[in-house]
């Protein structure tokens, strides 16, 4: 009998890229539900616009590069970029801003560098920063979370849709009525006004650790993140690195001066810190290669988030921290190359 020839190994592969991307998307679902609950349906519109732009951009670029678009779309990586962007942008974002960010992410940050696997910068963060620089006013406009106690104006599904499509609020509403300072904004402004952290923490937007709503979304992001770690899709090095890089300086400063420094818990549960630790910094393409390198990479991001939040102009700093560390990856890879078995160590020279 005759047989077909193959190359070893002959066992079925244990993972595939699309499966990994789909699980990352799945891990974001609990946080997405919480997000919609606290901030209204804006996230859904962001997601739809970002997904459409990312898929369109991916298909267009694959076509221009003369490659089959189907295989690139099937790997679902464009959808992960879209989802991260949707989470990063305020829930009230006009569609052209989302689309600009998404198209920049896919076309410039991803495909102009060679497509999946070759991008130096995290596409979602590159797109977000472009939007942040181009549309600063819109990107600092966050709707108030569902708190139940104060006179905030909760936008309906149609009102949110109208804003997304036109950029205009319904006639009788003003920006001041629908939006609130984010916890990070409130903290920064309060500290600049020489108020103590305790005073700032008593504002209605503040919850137990971070802001109302924000901290619950953070919890669900952590749930999804730990699930990915159990599934071994995300290894512990980057999340722990980000956590350590952010919490260690925050903790030390807070212990030294609790009145003027926000607590480590506040740092962790505000802004995009948890999203960054589990979902953004863990993008393997733009991260360092070795386990040790990944911890250093994560710690660098954490440190930069702390530095930008404390001394910088940007209130959150996640996107800048990630992009800066993306630049450091080749250097990190160089200094953290693992020792090959049989070279040095306890290997006796022949």
């Amino acid at each position, binding site marked *: 009998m005759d047989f*077909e020839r193959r190359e070893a190994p002959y066992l079925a592969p244990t993972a595939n890229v699309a499966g990994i991307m789909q699980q990352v998307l799945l891990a974001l679902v609990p946080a997405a539900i919480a997000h919609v609950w606290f901030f209204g349906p804006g996230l859904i519109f962001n997601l739809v616009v970002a997904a459409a732009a990312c898929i369109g951009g991916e298909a267009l670029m694959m076509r221009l590069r003369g490659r089959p678009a189907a295989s690139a779309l099937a790997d679902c990586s464009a959808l992960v970029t879209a989802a991260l962007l949707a989470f990063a942008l305020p829930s009230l974002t006009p569609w052209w801003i989302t689309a600009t960010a998404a198209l920049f992410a896919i076309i410039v940050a991803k495909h102009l560098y060679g497509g999946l696997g070759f991008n130096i910068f995290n596409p979602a963060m590159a797109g977000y920063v472009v939007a942040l620089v181009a549309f600063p006013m819109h990107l600092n406009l966050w709707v108030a979370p569902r708190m139940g106690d104060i006179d905030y104006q909760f936008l309906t599904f149609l009102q949110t849709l109208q804003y997304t499509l036109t950029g205009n609020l319904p006639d009788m509403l003003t920006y001041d009525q629908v939006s609130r300072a984010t916890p990070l904004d409130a903290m920064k402004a309060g500290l600049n006004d020489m108020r103590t952290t305790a005073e700032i923490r008593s504002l209605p937007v503040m919850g137990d650790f971070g802001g109302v709503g924000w901290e619950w979304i953070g919890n669900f992001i952590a749930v999804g993140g730990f699930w990915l770690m159990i599934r071994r899709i995300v290894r512990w090095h980057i999340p722990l690195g980000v956590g350590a890089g952010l919490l260690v300086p925050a903790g030390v400063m807070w212990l030294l001066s609790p009145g003027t420094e926000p607590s480590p818990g506040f740092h962790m549960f505000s802004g995009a810190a948890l999203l960054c630790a589990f979902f953004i910094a863990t993008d393997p393409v733009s991260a360092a290669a070795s386990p040790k390198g990944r911890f250093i990479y994560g710690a660098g991001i954490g440190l930069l988030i702390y530095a930008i939040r404390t001394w910088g102009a940007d209130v959150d700093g996640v996107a800048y921290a990630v992009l800066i560390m993306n630049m450091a990856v080749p250097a990190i890879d160089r200094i953290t190359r693992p020792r090959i078995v049989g070279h040095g160590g306890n290997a006796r020279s022949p």
Partner: protein
Amino acid sequence: MSSPAPTYDLGKLHGGLRLDAHKSASTGLPVQSLPLPAQLILPIDQHAGQPAQPLVGVGERVLRGQLLAESPGTLGAPVHASSSGKVVAIEPWPVVSRHGDPAPCIVIECDGDDRAVESPEDPVPYTELPADAVLHAILQGGIVGLGGAVYPTAQKLMQAAACKLEYLILNGAECEPYISCDDMLMRERADSVVSGAQILLHALQLDCGYIVVESDKPEAIRQLASAMTDAADERLVLKQVPTIYPSGGEDQLVQLVTDREVPSGGLPTDVGCLVQNVGTAAAIHDWLQNGEPLISRITTITGDGIANPMNVRARIGTPVAELAKFAGGYTDSARHLVIGGPMTGKSITTDRVPVVKATNCILVLSDLRAPGPELPCIRCGECAAVCPVQLQPQQLFWYACADDERKLRSHGLIDCIECGCCDLVCPSHIPLTYDFRMAKARIRELEDEKARAERARRRFEARSERLQREQHERETELARQKERARQAGPDAIAEIMKRKQRDEGD
């Protein structure tokens, strides 16, 4: 008396994979004896190293155990007739070592009598022989490493004997899925393995031997422990290693058992260890104690393409098709024939190939590995996490694509053991092992080319130097003659001219 309970004190192995064993399918039955086939096909080269020369001609009758081919000197290993019969051809036949391409083979038509050559006299007990005589005796038995590398055992032992050795390690890890021939050997003939270990210790003048088995073979461990109790040999220790592929790789086993790393490009003997497969030890026992050269071996025939997976003792030279027939034939889903394990085995296109000394497993598989499209590397790092040598396959792949020889070297391509772990976990389904094999071949080619160019350059330089030297010599000679002539004056010149004319006249 030594305690035969297995010990666990182990070094660390980086990475590795826990694979589905698929072994129980073939361990249900005891090892079956395969009936003699009509024809035996014996490749002349069944070992690494010097090729053997045939000693018989077509038409000659041969007996079981008779020497058929021998390598010159102490290199290589002899080939013996696996049964009695007539040599009907010495011709090219498809063989495993060439992926089913033909290589010279001695074809014997069996007469069915299976008559053995008369052994000269009762063998001298090995304990009464000096160590080097035992090594020489092992050479005569045609014994090669049965773990798969088929390095001639005597040669390996002689090289090792020249090194400073501390441990003999008998490899019974058998870490690749599906393969169970060593497991069955240890279950059924643990005493032969232990006896083989004692012979090896004697031949190498060592006083510490480890017999190492993976933890998923409790029955083999039980039998070995009992055989070791019977042998009551203080020098032998039974060790259990975790069931992690590739714990049975030679260097990996050394690392697990002794916590020593075999240096890059070196051998286990560099760290005082000699590794032998348990099957090799049993074969040494068979030869030195019973006078039976290596003419048969246990082979696992298994996989979802085989109706009744099992282990058989087959004569060397039996066509694979015969084994498949004995094991109930192929199932309808049989698509691939692999000789060896599913991680490192060779895919062969025809089952006409014969079982050779290296054939530990015949694996017939349906289309298991979905040939999904190869996607770009996403640098997930899983490959690096499982690499037992702690390479970074994702980086190597990058450099292999760029054909960056310098980077490939500095990132340890040469240290890759081609275990296939990175391949299996790659979510982008990049055939990393294959790519690395190709890159290694290219580097070797480049090296050869460089060496050739270097030789040519040296030849050219030597030639120009020679020409220059000759030129120089001619010039000095001429100058010397001129000088002499000038000093001798016109008479002498006239004399010379005259002589020259006379010479030309002749």
